[in-house]
């Protein structure tokens, strides 16, 4: 059974690499993370025996992801919405954020 899980994991790794070659635009990150989450679930459920474990252990481990997601959501939401009210900076141009972080007078190479 472990062997089957391993094979699926290796296949999913190949899928991740192949999927990364295709550009889904902004969904790139999401798709990569989704596939990674599936792989992670397999490792957790089978290799780490979570499927046959007590409920309290499941709650403990899964709640850590829940609270971690709170950290992600609020910090990213803050960052993403920070410049909405400034019409000049509302769009994400490629190197547009330099107004907040002035370029060094010297370049960063020697």
């Amino acid at each position, binding site marked *: 059974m472990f062997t089957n899980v391993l094979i699926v994991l290796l296949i999913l790794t190949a899928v991740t690499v192949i999927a990364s070659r295709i550009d889904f635009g902004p969904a790139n990150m999401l798709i990569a993370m989704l596939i990674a989450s599936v792989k992670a679930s397999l490792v957790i459920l089978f290799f780490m025996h979570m499927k046959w474990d007590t409920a309290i252990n499941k709650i403990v481990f899964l*709640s*850590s992801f829940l*609270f971690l997601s*709170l*950290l992600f959501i*609020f*910090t990213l*939401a*803050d*960052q*993403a*919405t*920070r*410049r*909405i*009210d400034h019409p000049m900076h509302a769009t994400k141009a490629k190197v547009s954020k330099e107004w907040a*972080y002035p370029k*060094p007078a010297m370049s960063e190479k020697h």
Partner: protein
Amino acid sequence: MPLFVWALYATALLQVLATPVLGITVLLVAFERLYHIGIFDPRLGGDPVLFEHFFWFYSHPAVYIMVLPAFGIISELVSVHSRKPLFGYKLIAFSSLAIAIISFLVWGHHMFTSGQSTYAMFAFSFLTFFVAIPTAIKEFSWVATIWKGSIALNSPMLYTLAFLIIFAIGGLTGVILGALNVDLHLHDTYFVVAHFHYVMMGSIALAFFAGLHHWWPKMFGVMYNETLAKIACVTIFVGFNVTFLPQFEMGSQGMPRRYATYVPEFQPYHSASTVGAIILGSGVALMVSYLVASLFIGKKAMQNQWGGVTLDWLTPTPPPLENFAHAPKVTTEVYDYSTLDLKSTQTPIG
């Protein structure tokens, strides 16, 4: 399960989840200083606000880590010293867990002037009002427990009553600070200093003193001088309020935090705080002296000094290794005072 245990469960939950983020934050700051990765340094493209997010993600739950055990102590004490089961036991138990969970959603209220997005600030301010609700449930449940109880106005109870008054002020001023528009003016002023001293010193420290007095006979088998204890409690209460109450006013008039010099208008407030601090300090010094003295010249305490019915009062004094010779069997409700053996409250130890 006694409510102190519930409080400690909730505290443990917070400790496990919040502390690692502090760990990684400190590690990143160390890396920043050691090899200049630029993660928080704006010269290198980093964002100090990200540091603030990481820091306060831990530090807000941290204050609840500090206060939840204090709440647990007060829950135990109001019950024992009113000889009445706790009002709203389930509510208090679940409110501890609710505080633990909601406290992870509000950390941005320490960052209202940091330059984070307005929308994030709306969210944090809105959520901050929710964390006050379980806390208020506790406060009112404690008061309801005392109502029509058989109140013993001994020193632990006096500290507890002082806690209830001071925490009400501390908690309410916290909600004031949680309002985004008001906080923009009060941030980094003495209003904040007054608020957190009301909750940290006035509430947590007072609850600690209350617990110290409550469990002193169980821990050491001796009683301290009750009259001195009452005097010390009143002195501490008066000193504390004289120290910190003026700081609310001073802060709302604009006196900033961490300033050594200030305009003469604020001088009376600072002087009042100093006087209060002297009173507070003498009260604490008095408390320490009679507690230490009791170890040498204290009268023998009773086996069950206050008439509590939780397991802590059923161990011998001092409790042996692992507290009991055999694991005790609990067959009654946790605060069932009908099981109280009144003789044990009158029989000295030994």
